[in-house]
């Protein structure tokens, strides 16, 4: 292997009262992808902020292309060719692709007017160098998130970036978009660029990365070549202990019939039939756009039912609003906790109570002691890591935010719990805790519907799996029947159906 293009040695960063990084190393090699791996709070973002000049390091040395460097701000790092693609993209929806790429650096004619022709032509060249076919005049808002990311990468290239940092780039992408991102990454590598790839998803690291650096609790754990290492070793290095069983499946003890749905339909889903019993976890699989979240929101009363029958514990219900469904005993934990699940500006306590204020009020007046008692029980039961119940939810890690979402649902005392992507954006250690909680609820006689795009997780946790395709249930597989392959066959519509 050749010399590293970037060498960060013994980097430490101290914030008042906290040592965020302690003697961390990171080497990035020319023409290779370096994965930066670690749980939330391991120090990945802090390290990247030091690299790009947002923070100043407390100790350590950074050298870039053989020269010691000390970036004071983002512009310094940009000038030598280091670019960051953030999770939240810095693009203007109302402008075109070309205008976004050259925003603030538009090529000018002699009198100062923008040279549109040159701008569009340059943008076209950049997109072509990434093998992307897209009209540079197209408005940004017409692009999918995946495409927008490509524009952000093109923008980095236009700044002559040699080292590109990608922060959780696939978090919001579909599988197909992820594939084309990987193609672009390979193109960039062929052009001799170097990449730092930050992700939770181990599978992606094996697919696209050459090297991996693992951090834990602000400390350096190891640097390895990816072909030298397997998934279990990686996880152990990340969490710092042995993982017994990734998916702690528990035999079902099927109880009474909780939820029965027949011929359910509206604008989003159609002809939905299934049953859910107490003490079982039923998975819902399907491709992006198959109607999984729509099914959940239909059951939950967000999308009105137009056809069919829904019975909860034997009683027919016609969900008109979320409140009515919650009262009947079904509740939903959204896949997008920041947008649909939590009020980030409010405290842990206020979020957990929000769906079930009737439990802690009398004549609409909040009984604060009663509330505090209940909330503390939930914090303990779900081991939510928060300094106090008054902490704002936005200050918690992804895993703990997810637990707050789940606690909020539990507070309504549901019989049926619908979990939509319960482990998305959650690190490995917290995933296991969420699985354990699901088993605990299952044992307590709850019926759980688990929607997930990660098939291994469904195979690992569920008693049955419903596979959706184009708005309806294409097939149902028992735990013993289900495999990754036959789920995919139903999901793409090759098998099953009702014709």
């Amino acid at each position, binding site marked *: 292997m050749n010399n590293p293009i970037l060498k960060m040695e013994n980097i430490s960063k101290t914030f008042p009262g906290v040592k965020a990084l302690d003697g961390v190393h990171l080497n990035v090699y020319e023409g290779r992808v370096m994965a930066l791996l670690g749980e939330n709070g391991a120090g990945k973002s802090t390290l990247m902020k030091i690299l790009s000049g947002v923070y100043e390091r407390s100790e350590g040395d950074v050298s870039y292309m053989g020269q010691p460097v000390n970036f004071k701000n983002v512009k310094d790092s940009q000038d030598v060719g280091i670019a960051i693609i953030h999770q939240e993209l810095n693009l203007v929806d109302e402008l075109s692709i070309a205008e976004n790429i050259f925003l603030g650096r538009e090529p000018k004619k002699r009198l100062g007017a923008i040279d549109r022709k040159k701008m569009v032509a340059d943008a076209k060249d950049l997109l072509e160098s990434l093998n992307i076919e897209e009209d540079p005049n197209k408005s940004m808002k017409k692009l999918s998130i995946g495409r927008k990311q490509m524009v952000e990468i093109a923008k980095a290239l236009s700044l002559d970036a040699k080292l590109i940092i990608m922060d959780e780039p696939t978090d919001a992408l579909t599988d197909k978009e992820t594939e084309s991102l990987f193609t672009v990454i390979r193109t960039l590598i062929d052009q001799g660029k170097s990449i730092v790839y930050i992700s939770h998803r181990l599978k992606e690291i094996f697919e696209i990365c050459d090297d991996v650096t693992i951090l834990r609790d602000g400390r350096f754990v190891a640097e390895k070549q990816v072909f030298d290492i397997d998934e279990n070793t990686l996880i152990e290095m990340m969490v710092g202990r042995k993982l017994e069983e990734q998916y702690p499946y528990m035999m079902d003890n099927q109880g009474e019939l909780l939820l029965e749905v027949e011929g359910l339909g509206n604008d989003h889903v159609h002809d939905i039939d299934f049953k859910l019993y107490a003490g079982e976890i039923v998975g819902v699989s399907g491709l992006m756009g198959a109607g999984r979240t729509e099914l959940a929101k239909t059951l939950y009363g967000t999308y009105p039912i137009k056809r069919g029958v829904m019975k909860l514990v034997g009683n027919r219900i016609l969900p008109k609003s*979320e*409140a009515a469904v919650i009262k009947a005993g079904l509740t939903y934990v959204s896949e997008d906790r920041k947008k649909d699940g939590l009020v980030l500006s*409010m405290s842990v306590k206020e979020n957990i109570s*929000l769906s079930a204020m009737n439990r802690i009020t009398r004549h*609409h007046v*909040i009984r604060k002691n009663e509330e505090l008692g209940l909330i503390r029980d939930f914090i303990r039961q779900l081991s939510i890591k928060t300094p106090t119940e008054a902490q704002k939810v936005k200050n918690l890690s992804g895993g703990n935010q997810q637990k707050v979402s789940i606690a909020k649902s539990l507070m309504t005392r549901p019989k049926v719990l619908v979990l939509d992507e319960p482990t998305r954006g959650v690190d490995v250690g917290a995933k296991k805790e969420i699985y354990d909680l699901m088993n605990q609820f299952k044992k307590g006689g709850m019926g759980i519907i688990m929607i997930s795009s990660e098939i291994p997780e469904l195979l690992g946790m569920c008693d049955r799996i419903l596979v959706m395709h184009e708005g309806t249930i294409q097939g149902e597989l028992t735990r013993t029947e289900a495999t990754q392959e036959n789920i995919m066959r139903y999901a793409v519509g090759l098998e099953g159906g009702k014709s």
Partner: protein
Amino acid sequence: MKQEYKENLRRFQSVFGLLFFIIVISLLSDRFLTGSNIFNVLRQTSVNAIIAAGMTFVILTGGIDLSVGSTFAFSGAIGAYLIGSGQPFMVAVVGALTIGLLIGMANGFIIAHWHLQPFIVTLATMTIFRGATLVFTDGKPIGTGFEGSAALFAKIGGGYTFGIPNPILIMIVLFGLAYYILKHMSMGRYIYATGGNQEATKLSGVSIKKVKVFAYGISGLFAAISGMIITSRLSSAQPTAGTGYELDAIAAVVLGGTSLAGGVGSILGTVIGALIIGILNNALNLLDVSSYYQQLAKGLVILIAVLLDRKEK
């Protein structure tokens, strides 16, 4: 630790600002810190403060209510008319306040039911009810007269209880009520939640429509109460009364640290914001500053306060 300290500092920043203000003005004018002037300031402040208290509910939900000045005038005119035509005190007051409440609830309903921008909806109702006031009064003041229930009505704005002017007492009671609703009742929780994340609040089973009808209803009701105070003090309703009051109320709320984006803020902040504006007006009067310069000074103070309060990077 540091974060908590900073948050506390932010919370008390406006209190420090107010104290600083009071000290500077009392050094400049020896008439400022006298008993009669303190009552004077508080009484003048009460009109804007009460409207601002209602406005706080609306802004906390992430909305805005531009119609309060017109609601203030319209319900004042209705009140003056009812008293003037010999109706009993209670009929006139309850009638006028109900009008204010209904205007507010209508705002909330329209905004929530048809998912419209609060700015536009309340801009429209502001214009509608200013027009309605002009039509109803024919552009002329309506006197309450001085007979019968008018004497009792005049006490709302002009009377004293236990030696304290009634408008001040009304203001204190309304702020207490607002504080209780926002801090101790489920509706208060829902108001903060709606402003913080409306979609998540809806998906938690909370009826956004109820929350908005409530918040705008309170705003309309409080504007009408404020309108009663002025109508009572003047013994007449002016067709152009309350013009521009929505801006003073919004300024008081924002000076008090409530975010225009919703979800963050407090009613105590609004008290301080209203006091800052009230004291500033009073001080400029005491210092014989011309009313032209008063506008200028008020605008600058608001700008400086917002600059000081801006989010740290």
